[in-house]
C-alpha cells in the first residue's frame, strides 16, 4: 500500500510538470488526464483501506527531508473529496479550454495541479511539520490562482488573502517551533505519548494560526472577496477543499496528537466562535446582493458549523467525529457544485446580482437544478449528506450533554434555507422581456449537476464513508 499512498500524493506533480511544458493546445488535456489518473489512484487507495480495514503509510524523501504520510480513514475521506471536486473542476475548465476555446492564463493548470498535490500531502500528513509546509504551499497556490483573475479588485482580494495566509503561517510556525522544543517531536502519533505539561501554550499558538487559515470569525475578512472574485474554475476548489485543510490539521492535532492537553473550556470557546460564525456568515449572506459573494459568506457560516464538532468530540461524542467528516465532505461537494452553477448563471445572464437572476431557471434549467440540489444538502434536508452530518451533530449534542449547540445547528439550517431559497425563488421568476428564454445547457451544467447529485448519493449511502472513517479512527466505532 506504500506505493499507492505515494502515488496518490505525488501524481498531480507529474501533471504539473507535463502541463508546464505542454503547448497551450495540450495543457488542458494533460490537466484533465492527470485529474482522471489521480482520482483513479485515490479510489483504489480508498477501496484498499476500506477492504483491509488498515491504514497505509509512506515516507517521501526529498533530499534529507522526510515527509511522513498516513492513509487512515480520516485522511482518505478528505483525499477522495479533493479528487471528486478536483476532477469536476478539471472537467469544467477543460471544457472551456478544449470545446469553447476560451483563453485561460498559462499558469492555471500547473498551479491547480500543484495545489491538488499539496492538499493530498496535507490530508495524509503524519506530522505537523509536513502539514505546515503544505499549508504554506497551499496558501501560495491558492492566492496565485485567485490572482489569475488579473483585474485590480481581484488582485487586491488575492493580496489580502495571501497576507492573511502569511500571518497564519508564521503564527503556526512559531507554535510548531515551541511545540517541537517542549515535546521533542511533531509527529501526531508520538505527541500523544509525551507528557502534556507545558504544551498548552504551543497548542494555543498553533490553533490561532490554523483558525486564521480556516478562517473563523472574526478572522475571516479575507475570505468572501477572495472566493467571490476568484475565477470560476478556482473558487470551487477554494471553498470546497482548501478551507478544510487547516481544519483537518486542527482536528488531528487536537484529537490525535494532543487530546490530553485540550481542555473543555478551550473546546467550548472554539464552539462558541463557530456559533458566532454560523450567525454572522448567514446574516451577511442574507444581506448580500451578489450571487458569488452570498455563496462565499455561506462558506463562512458552514465553517462555523464545522467548528461545533470540536467541543462535541472533546465532550466524548464519537458521533461528532463522524458527523464532522461527513459535514466536511458533503459541504465540499455541495459548495463546489453551487459555485460552478453560480458561475454558469452569472456568465449566461451577464449579471452577478441575485435580483437579476429572474428567468435563470428557464434559460439554464440544469444549472439551476444543480444549485437547488446543492442547497438541499447545505440546508441539511433529507436525503442529502448534509442531513446525515447534521443528524450526527444533533445526536452528539444530546449524548455529550451539550444541548446548547442544537439551537445553533437548527438556526444555521433555517438561515441557510433563507438565503439560498432567495436565489432559487428569483431564478424561477419570469424573465424580463428583453431576455430570451430559450433553454440552453452544455457539459458544464451537467458537471455541476452530477457533483450536486453526489451529495444525495452520500445521504442515501453514507455507510461506506462511515466504515472508511473507522479505519484507524481515534474514536470508538459509530453505528451505521
Amino acid at each position, binding site marked *: 500500500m506504500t506505493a499507492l499512498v505515494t502515488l496518490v500524493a505525488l501524481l498531480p506533480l507529474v501533471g504539473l510538470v507535463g502541463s508546464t511544458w505542454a503547448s497551450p493546445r495540450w495543457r488542458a488535456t494533460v490537466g484533465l488526464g492527470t485529474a482522471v489518473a489521480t482520482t483513479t489512484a485515490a479510489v483504489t487507495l480508498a477501496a484498499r483501506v476500506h477492504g483491509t480495514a488498515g491504514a497505509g503509510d509512506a515516507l517521501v524523501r526529498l533530499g*534529507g*527531508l522526510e515527509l511522513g504520510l498516513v492513509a487512515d480513514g480520516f485522511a482518505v475521506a478528505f483525499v477522495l473529496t479533493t479528487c471528486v471536486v478536483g476532477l469536476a473542476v478539471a472537467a469544467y475548465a477543460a471544457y472551456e479550454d478544449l470545446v469553447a476555446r476560451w483563453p485561460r492564463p498559462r499558469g492555471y493548470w500547473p498551479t491547480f495541479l500543484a495545489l491538488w498535490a499539496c492538499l493530498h500531502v496535507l490530508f495524509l500528513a503524519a506530522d505537523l*511539520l509536513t502539514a505546515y509546509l503544505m499549508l504554506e504551499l497551499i496558501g*501560495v497556490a491558492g492566492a496565485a490562482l485567485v*490572482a489569475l483573475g488579473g483585474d485590480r479588485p481581484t*488582485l487586491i482580494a488575492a493580496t489580502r488573502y495571501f497576507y492573511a495566509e502569511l500571518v497564519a503561517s508564521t503564527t503556526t510556525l*512559531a507554535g510548531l517551533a515551541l511545540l517541537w*522544543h517542549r515535546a521533542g517531536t511533531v509527529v501526531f502519533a508520538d505527541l500523544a505519548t509525551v507528557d502534556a505539561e507545558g504544551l498548552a501554550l504551543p497548542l494555543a499558538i498553533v490553533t490561532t494560526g490554523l483558525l486564521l487559515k480556516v478562517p473563523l470569525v472574526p478572522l475571516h475578512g479575507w475570505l468572501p472577496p477572495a472566493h467571490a472574485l476568484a475565477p470560476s474554475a478556482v473558487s470551487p476548489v477554494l471553498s470546497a477543499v482548501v478551507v478544510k485543510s487547516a481544519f483537518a490539521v486542527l482536528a488531528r492535532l487536537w484529537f490525535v496528537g494532543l487530546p490530553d492537553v485540550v481542555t473543555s473550556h478551550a473546546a467550548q470557546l472554539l464552539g462558541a466562535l463557530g456559533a458566532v460564525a454560523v450567525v454572522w456568515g448567514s446574516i451577511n449572506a442574507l444581506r448580500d446582493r451578489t450571487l458569488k459573494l452570498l455563496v462565499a459568506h455561506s462558506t463562512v457560516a458552514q465553517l462555523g458549523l464545522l467548528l461545533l464538532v470540536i467541543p462535541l468530540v472533546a465532550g466524548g461524542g464519537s458521533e461528532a467525529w463522524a458527523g464532522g467528516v461527513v459535514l466536511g465532505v458533503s459541504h465540499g461537494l455541495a459548495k463546489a457544485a453551487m459555485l460552478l452553477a453560480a458561475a454558469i448563471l452569472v456568465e449566461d445572464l451577464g449579471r452577478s446580482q441575485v435580483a437579476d437572476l429572474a428567468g435563470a431557471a428557464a434559460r439554464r434549467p440544469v444549472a439551476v437544478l444543480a444549485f437547488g440540489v446543492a442547497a438541499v444538502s447545505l440546508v441539511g434536508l433529507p436525503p442529502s449528506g448534509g442531513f446525515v452530518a447534521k443528524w450526527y451533530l444533533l445526536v452528539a449534542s444530546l449524548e455529550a450533554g451539550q444541548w446548547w449547540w442544537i439551537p445553533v445547528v437548527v438556526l444555521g439550517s433555517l438561515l441557510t434555507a433563507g438565503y439560498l431559497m432567495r436565489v432559487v425563488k428569483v431564478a424561477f421568476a419570469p424573465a424580463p422581456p428583453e431576455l430570451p428564454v430559450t433553454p440552453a445547457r452544455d457539459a458544464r451544467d451537467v458537471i455541476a449537476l452530477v457533483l450536486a447529485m453526489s451529495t444525495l448519493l452520500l445521504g442515501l449511502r453514507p455507510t461506506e464513508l462511515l466504515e472508511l472513517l473507522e479505519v484507524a479512527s481515534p474514536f470508538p466505532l459509530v453505528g451505521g
Partner: protein
Amino acid sequence: MTGLVVVAGLFVVGLVASFASPAVRGRPWALAVLAGAALLGLVLAAPGDAAGWWAVGAAAVTLVAMVGFAVRLARRVAETAPATSLDDERW
C-alpha cells in the same frame, strides 16, 4: 530563554507592524519580520541533526517564497492602481 524572548519580541513587532501598516506596498516587509521571527524560533527548537536542519531549510525556502510572492502581488496591485489610492487599501 533569551532566544525565546528575542523570538517572541520580534514576532510581536512583526505582528503589530503587519496589522498597522496602512499600505499594501509596505506590508510585505512587516510580514518578512514576522516570518524571520518564526524561522528563528524553528532554528532554536529544531534538533541539531541532519533531519532537523533539513526541516529548517524547507521551512526557510517556503517562507522566502511566500514573502517573495507577497512582494510580487503588492507590486502587481501597485501597477494596476492609481498611486494616490494605494495607501487607502486596508484589509
